[in-house]
């Protein structure tokens, strides 16, 4: 199935809101995703960013990579800060203190800042129905502090706090399903995306921007440093994550699931796993387990998408 092309690449402006000179690692897919995504949001946007890689690489005093109003407060509260900004600008517009116009409020956090320490603040903001977009840039571990496991780290992965050993297979839990948690809040728009599929990603950003109410986008962002892959392979591994069904691309509009890119027939997960240093220790048995889980999750997603 070809995804419906909602945008042409030429529609994205040349202007850079995330400028060069930042300190991201070579091949970082997170900054690539943000650079592209912000072009769709455009100039009338305010960013609230959690502590993490994207914050640290972009704003050592007295410099900044952001050509948009940008605020960082702490690790676990990007959604709460965004709530305050959205409420603050809304009341000031109502009172005539600032001119009325559509301003996109965007909260950005990593997988730790979203699925672990920031989950409560995010849940609160989604439940209250603030008009904002939350972007989780998921590189599947606490990369900023040196590759520690999060609840978003996949089963079997090696991190510095889920090391494989005589009594350990690496990460022993399954990746937390954040998009499903967002869907459970009955918010109008939830999507998964990956910068390896930029058209799909940008179309989703556009939908999130146009959504009235909370929108949640979960972006798989390959981290060559933490995944132990060559820095020119971030796009490649993002594609493999999608084509193997490890990270399916879909969206949920008002509760209705739609797979936006079908990778069927799924490639075997070994194609994704092999070559990644973080999975180097996995035995065939464990890889078979992962394959089984992926098949199950993919079928479940297909069932959801067929529900009317």
């Amino acid at each position: 199935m070809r995804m419906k092309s909602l945008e042409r690449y030429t529609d994205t402006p040349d202007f850079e809101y995330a400028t060069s000179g930042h300190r991201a690692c070579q091949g970082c897919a997170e900054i690539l995703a943000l650079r592209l995504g912000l072009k769709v949001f455009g100039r009338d946007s305010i960013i609230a960013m959690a502590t993490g890689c994207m914050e640290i690489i972009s704003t050592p005093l007295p410099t900044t990579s952001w050509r948009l109003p940008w605020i960082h407060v702490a690790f676990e509260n990007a959604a709460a800060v965004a709530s305050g900004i959205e409420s603050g600008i809304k009341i000031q517009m109502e009172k005539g203190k600032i001119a009325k116009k559509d301003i996109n409020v965007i909260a950005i956090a990593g997988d730790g800042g979203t699925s672990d320490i920031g989950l409560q603040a995010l849940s609160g903001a989604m439940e209250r129905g603030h008009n904002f977009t939350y972007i989780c840039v998921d590189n599947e571990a606490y990369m900023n502090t040196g590759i520690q496991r999060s609840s978003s780290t996949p089963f079997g992965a090696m991190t510095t706090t889920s090391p494989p050993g005589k009594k350990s297979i690496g990460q022993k839990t399954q990746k937390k399903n954040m998009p499903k948690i967002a869907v459970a809040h009955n918010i109008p728009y939830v999507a998964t995306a990956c910068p390896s599929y930029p058209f799909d990603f940008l179309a989703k950003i556009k939908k999130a921007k146009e959504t009235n109410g909370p929108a949640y986008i979960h972006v798989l962002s390959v981290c060559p440093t933490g995944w132990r892959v060559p820095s020119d392979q971030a796009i490649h591994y993002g594609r493999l994550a999608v084509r193997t069904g490890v990270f399916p691309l879909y969206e949920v509009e008002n509760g209705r699931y739609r797979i936006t890119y079908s990778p069927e027939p799924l490639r075997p997960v070994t194609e994704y796993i092999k070559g990644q240093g973080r999975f180097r220790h996995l035995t065939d048995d464990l890889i078979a387990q992962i394959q089984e889980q992926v098949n199950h999750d993919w079928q479940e997603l297909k069932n959801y998408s067929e529900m009317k």
Partner: protein
Amino acid sequence: MSANKGMEVSIAASVAAKLARVEVIAAYPITPQTHIVEHLADIVANGELDASYINVESEHSAMSACVGASASGARTFTSTSAQGMELMHEILFIASGMRLPIVMAAVNRALSSPLSIWGDHSDVMAARDTGWIMLFTENGQEVVDSIIMAFKIAEDRKVLLPVMVNLDGFSLSHVIEPIQFPAQEDVDRFLPPYAPLYTLHPDRPVTMGAYAMPELYTEAKYGQEMAIRNSKAVVKEVMDQFSTEFGRKYSIVETYNTENADTVFMALGSINENIKTAIDILKDNGKELGLVAPRLFRPFPADELVEVLKTKKKLAVLERAMPGGAMNGPLYNEIASLVIQNGLNIQLENFIFGLGGRDVEPDELIDLFEQVSTSAKVVHADNKNYGVIGVRS
């Protein structure tokens, strides 16, 4: 100027926030702060105040939302107590470090464990070095006036710091007192709309909350420290201006019967009304004792305290927080530092009282005052440097 109105102090505090025309309120319920945020919710629901009311899911998010709202240029208010203040502790430092003029009514309550919903100062004392300007209040009128003054202090371009208005849980927050409310047009004249220096707005993009390398962190914190130290002059100015506009006189250090007394007492908050009563009773018996009550606790009004204390022989510091293993209570420690640095020849005593809502009767205060003023140095049980009033061992 309106007539006196009998009103619960919490309700009066929310009316003060309304008079200040707050624009964003982000709050999470905790006893004994609840009546403030409940009544504010009513005020907003009835359309009496044009404000966004954010029902956050925790105090951590309350202060985080306040930071976001204040950074967007809105006049921002919240209120909390005890565990709530602890949960927002992390963000208290960030609010002051980012120089955001948020005002918070802190309804002071004991910290768990053991759980206690009742009043003391362990919450604010645990937050005393967060870089917030801190005011303490003695009665309902002071609470109302302080909340209005707090915004003017916080939003002054020479200050730009958050302000915490402390009021004792229950013993002040839940009592009904006669309150005189200033007229809205007078408050509007005294406190014009907040005109921020920088806001989060696409027309003028700024980066807020950048991080500092070792080369800059010290300078950033030093600048902030200078701002809070220099804010004392603005606090004084605002109090003077308030006196001129509304007729009620405030000073950063209040004194009571200190002219004739060699022995003086010091405490923060609503206990000071009881202390004044005890001083009056003893005065009738021919004993002259005084009270030194800092209304401003941060920045610490050192010069003003020295001015009062330099001629005194004895000072007993009464405070509502356990030292937690320190030499003495937090207020005493600060006073001890002040005495040493200024070479004052004054004897100090330290008493802990009123923990977790424990009542202190005027008779107990009178006994204590007799003891302090007649003995050379009070000897405390268990070799402590301080006494704990009414403790059963």
